[in-house]
């Protein structure tokens, strides 16, 4: 690039500051792993979103044909009420995906802010760390049980559990990044220059904190999907008859002899989702390593 027009190139530089960050993540998704992962995820999301169009019979199309074996017509067979298990699994994705898509970003933003709050007030940062300690002291399902007690079982309780459960993961990462970035010489240099705290935060600390956080978003999504399954399996999550991967398993396991696909189907969906997010996390992680290890 030749710098002929100073103002223009300067603006270009600033645009690149943003572009470079996002571009890196997009580039990561272009890698083979990222491509497969995001492709799979897009496929699952599209299937969930367009389930009513793909399967016009709806999630509840019952028939007298209980427990049919898997066939072309019913890839996962039918359940006790003669419903297509595959269709129900696809619909169930709606719950899992909506949960993590709402809850994890909330947790990511809140957690990151809480983690970074130490930059504004040391005391506040410490206080949030203690909160994270407490949350981390609670094994995930115990946490879920506590929240179900307070809120009552359902989507909201699950979303809250996922948020609370993921919060410290982001908070810790952000704080870790903050602490390590704060001591970096380029941050000190900016401080010596008199750059204001918010600007230092946005320009120097946040971009470097974001990498691990983006990776964690993917991982927390997996965590969230499994939390839904766990709580719904024991009946404390989504309440039947709304199909979710957990509620399907809750019922499916009772018919495991009559229709193993009733259990296997939701598990396949769970694993596909987990695989998609895992591949994405891997790809992002590789990207992080690449830019870190320059």
């Amino acid at each position, binding site marked *: *690039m*030749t*710098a002929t027009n*100073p*103002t223009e*190139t*300067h603006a270009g*530089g*600033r645009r*690149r*500051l943003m572009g*470079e*960050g996002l571009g890196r993540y997009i580039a990561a998704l272009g890698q083979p792993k990222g491509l497969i992962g995001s492709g799979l995820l897009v496929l699952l999301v599209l299937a969930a979103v367009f389930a009513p169009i793909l399967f016009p019979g709806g999630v509840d199309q019952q028939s007298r044909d209980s427990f049919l074996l898997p066939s072309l017509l019913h890839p996962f067979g039918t359940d006790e009420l003669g419903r297509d298990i595959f269709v129900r699994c696809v619909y169930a994705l709606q719950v899992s995906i909506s949960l993590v898509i709402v809850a994890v970003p909330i947790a990511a933003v809140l957690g990151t802010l809480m983690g970074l709050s130490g930059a504004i007030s040391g005391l506040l940062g410490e206080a949030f760390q203690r909160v994270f300690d407490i949350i981390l002291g609670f094994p995930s399902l115990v946490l879920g049980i506590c929240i179900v007690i307070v809120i009552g079982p359902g989507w909201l309780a699950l979303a809250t559990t996922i948020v609370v459960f993921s919060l410290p993961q982001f908070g810790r990462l952000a704080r870790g990044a903050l602490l390590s970035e704060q001591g*970096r*010489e*380029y941050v*000190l*240099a*900016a*401080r*010596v*220059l*008199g*750059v204001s705290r918010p600007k230092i935060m946005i*320009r*120097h600390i946040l*971009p*470097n904190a974001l990498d691990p956080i983006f990776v964690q978003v993917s991982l927390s999504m997996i965590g969230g999907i499994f939390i839904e399954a766990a709580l719904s399996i024991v009946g404390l999550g989504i309440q039947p008859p709304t199909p979710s991967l957990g509620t399907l398993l809750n019922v499916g396991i009772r018919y495991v002899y009559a229709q193993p696909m009733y259990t296997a189907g939701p598990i396949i969906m769970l694993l596909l989702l987990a695989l998609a997010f895992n591949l994405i996390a891997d790809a992002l992680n590789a990207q992080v390593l690449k*830019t870190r290890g*320059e």
Partner: protein
Amino acid sequence: MAANLLEVRNLGTTFRFGQAEVQALHEVSFEARTGRVLGIVGESGSGKSLTARAIMRMLPETASVSNGEVLFESGNLLDLPEARMRSIRGSKIAMVFQDPQAALNPVKTVGWQIEEALVVHGMNKSRARARAIELLGQVGIPEPDKRIDDFPHQFSGGMRQRVVIAIAIANSAKLIIADEPTTALDVTIQAQVLRLLVDLKSRLDIGVILITHDMGVVAEICDDIVVMYGGRVVERGAVAGVFAAPQHPYTRNLLRSMPRIEGVRTARLPTIPGSTPDLSRLPSGCAFHPRCQFAEDICLREVPVLLPMAGSPEREAACHVARQNAGLPPDPDPTPSSEPLAGVRTSGSAPAILEIEDLSVTFPGGGGWLRREKPIVAVDGVSLSLRPGETLGLVGESGCGKTSLSRTIVGLNRPSSGYIRVAGEDVTDFGAEAAAHVRRTVQYVFQDPYASLNPRLSIRQILSEALEQRGLPGRQREAAARALMDMVGLDAAYLDRYPKAFSGGQRQRIGIARALAVEPRVLICDEPVSALDVSIQAQVINILADLRDRLGLGILFIAHDLSVVRHLSDRVAVMYLGRIVEIGPASDVYEHPLHPYTAVLLSSTPKPVPDPSAMQRKLVLGGDMPSPRNPPSGCRFRTRCPIGPLADPSRRICIEKDPLLVGPGEHKSACHFPDEAAGLAVQSKA
């Protein structure tokens, strides 16, 4: 001449990165002899460690030997089965590593680790223990029978390196390969360890290969030298001969670009242009040709071979020019030593731009709620002043408080007591206004050129952030940024590059440009060149000197390398354990030190002048610097002082009374016996 102990012939190694192969070492040949120290020198990445590891057959997994042989005891080590090689490692050839912190297993006692070296080569446990105690004593660890059951973290860095050396000599190895054994240590400790190595060499009659990047170290203890550049040996021979008349331009330039602690100070250091090449992208022909003032066509095309020089068969060099001309032509540049320094630039009467009075910096001790550690007093009652256009050098061992002091001045640390005045204004409280004032006046250049630039920002962004702080409107920043680049000698076309595209020296220049962006009047440079290779170091030092003279900057120049400080400074302050122990005009301090610590530092610093007796005359300090948590009473230096109560128990005053920083005129020292300190220095030079 002693027989060859080890012969390396045409050694080549390659790295494999996926499909690609990179040849890292090319035709490396040299020999080591019993009773002699062979120095291998070269800048970072030139392949020194790789050579050592190839000899030991301890290459990284991705590397392999592609050709050549390593002859030892009439066999080729590279052909031995691994089990045979293992029995040679540690028993016939031993190795000492760079970082004494990391080279010992933290969860095993030092005794266990020495014993292991013996046990794996067949000694029984109880004999091994007795021998381990003996070895600890041999390397100079006091009370070895007590310390043998201590863990490594209970030892200081220097002592750990002694333990590693004890391991190396445990099985009476014939050859010790020491890979930068003192690079991580302070000069005072370095002197201890080097002396130990030399002692052991002559006492045990072994051969030593010493890898280093410090020509001073080579001059002081090596008998032979191998100079490496870009994975090749470019010159080798006896130290005296090579130093007197280097036959490769690289060797010559390297020697010249070193700042000297003694002799005439020059205005500019001779530099080697460009930077050290990356082994995976070596220039064609002679790897040094892009930086060589004699480069001819042939140098671009043909790789020069290492051949004996006409007239001095013991000398070999790999240079087309030297070969064609039967020796290196004289340097086209004017001889630097002919242009003495232009005197002190400041008028002594100008008001100080930076004044520090009785400043202390304390770090909380840490620990839990129930048990608090004592606080660390990193800086304890320091007073300094700096005038415009003046350079004040600040030297001292690692951990003495140099960084803490300098960061406090720019508000990165809070002082616990004392005053800071910048351009006459008291800024100690560092309120909003004071902070703004400091930032306009004082800027900082950091030590690590790799860490001090945000890898996410282009150079343009880095500079314009700084220019923005100066209040420059957006449209003017471009021109200002170009001016800054020009000022530090970088091409303005580089503005759009990211830091990773630059070498260490270039980055450091960008760091300086950033500091200059706000047009400060004082620059604080915290070891700005200690992470750089010698050839690059000179470039940065020259730029600093230029800028100081052009802009009338006051510079607080921090370093632990006394030669560098001497080159640049008008006045020098010596720091020990949070205190200034001596301060004065550079020439006075260097020539007539009034504090034993200064004398020791000066004496410990290796000088790139071969002198077989230098090692014997050196003042070598015992022990290590005490922890700033629990400084000794009275004079802080007394626990290591060669003239204090250690040498003369009647000197109770050193234990009881804290010496004041006093002296004739500007040259002050904090010693109860300054005259004796002066005598000490004279004695070590004679």
